[in-house]
């Protein structure tokens, strides 16, 4: 059977082909796909399995081990709040509550307009100037509730 691949899936093919000859290529492949597509879809898992001569279950097992990899689409802006101790010491527990309240979602959820998804992370290495959040690849320090709201309202212009 001939399958017509939609464009993301043919990108996936290219990614796998360009990386599969590296030693221990699976994590680099998963990172590259997630960076390109935003998540690792079941179809992509099948393609990886075939090309690496592993079973889809094995690939799935690896994906599910790591907190970062996801099999469903994220929000346009992926917010990650640091939950670890040094941020707790600077008020992150209150920030977590505020963020959930402000976005009206819990961790591992997405707003209904698909604009924001919310996740936790354990330490962003910014521990002297917490509480800290990351939105996509950007790091923000000293996040008061107010600064959180402000960053979110400017996110469209700041994160292009």
């Amino acid at each position, binding site marked *: 059977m001939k399958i017509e691949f939609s464009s993301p899936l043919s990108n996936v093919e290219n990614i796998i082909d360009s990386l599969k000859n590296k*030693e*221990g*290529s*699976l*994590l*680099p492949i*998963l*990172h590259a796909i997630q960076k390109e597509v935003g998540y690792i879809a079941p179809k992509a898992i099948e393609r990886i399995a075939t090309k690496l001569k592993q079973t889809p279950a094995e690939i799935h*097992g*690896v994906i599910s*081990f*790591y*907190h*970062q*990899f996801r099999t469903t689409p994220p929000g346009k802006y992926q917010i990650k709040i640091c939950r*670890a*101790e*040094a*941020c*707790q*010491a*600077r008020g992150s527990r209150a920030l977590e509550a505020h963020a959930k309240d402000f976005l009206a979602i819990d961790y591992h959820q997405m707003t209904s307009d698909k604009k924001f998804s919310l996740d936790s*992370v*354990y*330490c*962003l*290495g*910014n*521990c*002297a*100037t*917490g509480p*800290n959040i*990351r939105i996509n*690849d950007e*790091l*923000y*320090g*000293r996040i008061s509730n107010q600064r959180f709201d402000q960053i979110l309202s400017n996110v469209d212009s700041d994160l292009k």
Partner: protein
Amino acid sequence: MTTKIFIPRESTAISLGAHQVAQAFTHYLSQHDLDIKVIRNGSRGLFWLEPMVEIETAQGRMAYGPVAPADVASIMEDISQNILHEKPQCHALALGLTENIAYLKKQTRLTFARAGITDPVSLDDYLALDGFKGLQKSIALSTQEIVTAVVDSGLRGRGGAAFPTGIKWQTVRDATADKKYIVCNADEGDSGTFADKLVMECDPFMLIEGMIIAGLAVGADQGYIYLRSEYPIADAILQQAIEVAGVAGYLGNDVCGSGKSFNLEVRLGAEAYICGEETALLESLEGKRGMVRFKPPLPALEGLFGKPTIVNNVLSLAAIPFIMSEGSHAYQQYGTNRSRGTLPFQLAGNVKQGGLIELPFGSSLKDLIDDFSGGTASNRPIKAIQVGGPLGAYLPSHKLDILLDYEAFSKASAVLGHGGIVVFDDSVDMLEQARFSMEFCVVESCGKCTPCRIGSTRGVEVIDRIKNDERRAENMILLNDLCDTMIDGSLCAMGGMTPIPVRSAFTDFPQDFFLTTQENHHD
């Protein structure tokens, strides 16, 4: 001559607006006819002053901080009216000569000697400040001579376990194999730590140099830096530095004309604390779930893809260029007892002046806090300090005279680990902190052993019952027994050390567990 203004491209500075500040300077300079150019340097690690901007003068660099884009015009006026005419700084954010800032002056910077001074990806800057001197000396030595120098330096692994680095290198050197690897553990998962990140973002060539020397010492031609994906800026800077080092002939098939080859690649983790454990890290590098391996075999003999492998922390490898260039004794002369050299401590959490503090081992925790912290950020009294990451003990304020040395911490059932120091004020609830330690273990356990995987879940439940006053006394006994089970039945320190912060919480802060001091005698 063109005057240079330095604005960090390090991640903490960026998280506080360094890019916007740099843009504001560039914009100002485009509107004014001044012979000044902006350099993006690393950070000195004085984080409460970031973004810290420095300007080059005949006496040395003068600093301003923390700078916001709105301050740029007035700083530029101060620079053009005063500094450029060799008059003293006159500005609300003026900090004087950077080198004279007490926080820096009181340190012994061996590993962080260049941090914040250089442009991190400028090879010329690196070479001008002793860069690659250690490598040049190592190339002239036999492999055994390099290993012996590392043994003699007294360096112990900075990733947490404090295993003597030279002995590990000797094992890998003596192994016969067709392939060997150097793996740098840059997973830096401990809350309260950022020294690895600072090395990679501020002085990446030093890490590269340390890894090349390790390769020469043991006969390995491939290196991997396993970097946590939470550090995208470190990733970008490392990639640039590796590229530059390759073009200049420090990496590749003929390292500095030595005939030896060494290649280096960065590999990203994917948010899994356990992948900092060295065998889980190797599994992850092989493209698998990060499950901890049984030891033996040691990674030194059967490591990555079953080949002899050095796994070392960033700071361990970063100490090597100094040791090889200045000699084992120059490093070994610092420190105390069996903890030799310096440790880059990381002061974090509820303090006014958080940052990187490199000191010889042996001063007291209390002195470090008194000399550097500036008090708590909240102006409330200190209640607890967690040292050594999420598996480290919470020390109460009356136990702070403990000496910063590996053995002194072990003796006190505490952990020096990677040198993270996290300060909490009196608003912290230690029962909640103990609960968090158990919860963290639930989230991050690799799942191989029952006491760690299931025990931590039970731990959260038991602590919740204590909190809700359900058969409190019985549940305290249960919690203590659970800690024993986790210690005795866990394969690695994730399950085996989670009881350390938990026990320290109920032992030293019994009031938060609703215990009177008499009730609390479970040792």
